[in-house]
């Protein structure tokens, strides 16, 4: 039994709007990642993926507010901490974050070496600059970045190179958990592959010990992560291993997502590309029952009234739907025929 690196129990965070309305963007999310494992989070735009990422790293600046739940990183509970304390003691060393737009993450007027110095000096003001430089050079070389990158300005780097530089900088202090929020969606396939290779290298060399990967590209998640969780309207609707989730999704929404996969392979022939009609519910006043009910093909009246808990099945999997697993599987089989 390996060690649990990150455990989240019933995390709820909310946005408070101008009109004092509460919008629960992350609603009772629980997850756990063991050492050396990676977890993928999938879902469409606006389902709360990025808010979950911000909440996990304790980044509670208005309008985002912490409501309840625990976030435990390697035995240390960081939930409810002051965001400034989190910045000083947690970010970078315990948990690190890679944003989607690497271009906006780097100040265009400074050299890359300066960013590395900033990160290290912020945590250890007495660190020696020469040592930092040597360490940065060694780390960059190990991760396959050319040595001259350190002396360049961000604008001189290509998109893929910038993203890889951001990854190298954010993991320089060996964080325990890395949260990658759509790190490759703005890149073309070749750069994307390099980014993924780098993340895998980091994992293998032990610079990070667990990873959360957020994206809406399912083929990518399938190849990168061990487990996948599907998020819908602030809730986790299904979780399982990558293989189970792609080839045997149970929740109607996950199944819908899996049907939007497009890959250039023979297997796609005859594969039906089906869009899920409609839009997600407004989280200002979420539906009382199942949040997916309005868009679900298999909806029955009681879906709209009973709130649905996460139901465990097949050892490690879980789903949130009013129908039984067996019923859903029969319905899907019937549909495929």
């Amino acid at each position, binding site marked *: 039994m390996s060690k649990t690196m990150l455990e989240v129990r019933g995390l709820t965070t909310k946005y408070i709007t101008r009109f004092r309305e509460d919008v629960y963007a992350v609603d009772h999310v629980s997850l756990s990642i063991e050492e050396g494992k990676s977890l993928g989070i999938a879902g469409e735009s606006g389902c709360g993926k990025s808010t979950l990422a911000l909440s996990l790293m304790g980044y509670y600046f208005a309008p985002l507010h912490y409501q309840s739940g625990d976030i435990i990183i390697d035995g240390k509970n960081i939930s409810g901490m002051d965001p400034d304390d989190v910045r000083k003691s947690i970010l970078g060393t315990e948990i690190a974050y890679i944003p989607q737009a690497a271009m906006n993450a780097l100040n265009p007027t400074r050299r890359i070496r300066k960013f590395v110095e900033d990160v290290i000096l912020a945590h250890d003001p007495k660190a020696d600059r020469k040592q930092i430089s040597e360490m940065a050079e060694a780390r960059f070389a190990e991760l396959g970045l050319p040595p001259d990158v350190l002396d360049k300005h961000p604008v001189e780097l290509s998109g893929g190179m910038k993203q890889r530089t951001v990854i190298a900088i954010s993991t320089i202090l060996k964080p325990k958990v890395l949260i990658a929020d759509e790190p490759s969606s703005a890149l073309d396939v*070749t750069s*994307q592959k390099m980014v993924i290779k780098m993340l895998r290298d980091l994992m293998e060399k032990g610079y990070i010990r667990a990873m959360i990967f957020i994206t809406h590209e399912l083929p990518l998640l399938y190849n*990168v992560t061990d487990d996948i969780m599907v998020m819908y309207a602030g809730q986790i609707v299904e979780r399982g291993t990558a293989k189970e989730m792609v080839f045997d999704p149970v929740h109607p929404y996950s199944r819908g997502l899996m049907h939007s996969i*497009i890959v250039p392979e023979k297997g796609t022939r005859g594969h039906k590309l089906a869009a899920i009609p409609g839009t997600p519910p407004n989280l200002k006043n979420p539906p009382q029952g199942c949040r997916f009910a309005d868009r679900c093909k298999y909806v029955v009246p009681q879906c709209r009234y009973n709130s649905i808990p996460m139901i465990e099945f097949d050892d490690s999997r879980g789903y949130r739907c009013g129908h039984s697993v067996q019923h859903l599987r029969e319905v899907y089989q019937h549909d495929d025929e």
Partner: protein
Amino acid sequence: MTTNECDVNTDSYLRPKRLEDIDKRPLCLSGKGVTKVFGTGAKQTKAVDHVDFEFHEGELVSIVGESGSGKTTLSKMLLGLLSISEGEISFQGKPRDISTRRKKQEYWKGIQAIFQDPFSSFNVFSKIDTVLLDCINMCGGRHLPKAKKVEMMTEACCFVNLKYAELTNKYPFELSGGQMQRLMIARIFLLKPKILLADEPTSMIDACSRATILDMLLHLRDEIGMTIIFITHDIGLSYYISDSVYIMEHGKFVEHGSADEVILSPKAAYTKRLISDVPKIYEPWDLSTV
């Protein structure tokens, strides 16, 4: 949008079939030795380098390449937004003439585009019905009675699964990215151009709304017989949707043919590399070859 009184049947497509008679159809847009040179002297770069292409009527062609391969430069030349350094483009069998503003406007009635970023494709000061009304006026519907115009706009909105009644008093920025991109397709539906040039229309939208957009493009092809030029870096997408595929590397077409030929048995090394770089589901994805 929980209940749609006029649903597009989004279920109907398996992998779309390649039209059999496509090679025999008349040419809609073709080019010979099309070249674009940027800069002068030593700094000269050939963004597009002597490319030949033939797009048939009602065909869905995709142009695939990485960032910087010249896809967007080529698309701008096709649209007449950039001048051509060398070579010739023919539109419906005749050499294209866009020397004057009037001739250009005439040409744009035949070719329209959807761009990558839906947020910057609309005039932020005009409401949605103005956007749609402009399209009707532009293609000769200026003198139609108001009721007829509203009917046309409702039909266009239905086609893209939006509700006209909810949109009339809204501004484009009040919609989500996917909805805006669909509104863009509603414009195309009203204008009914011969050619639609879609420059990465789905790269800023999530995978789920992407399916909807692709279905709509296919409907446009099948119902109106529009030629669609689909520019993308996602080779999986091009395999799914297109009749023919052109692969572009450093301003040149390295390979072209039907989607099955190009994707399932690629000949050029570049195509092979592109395909191997895409994350796979049924085959292992080799990370060691970076």
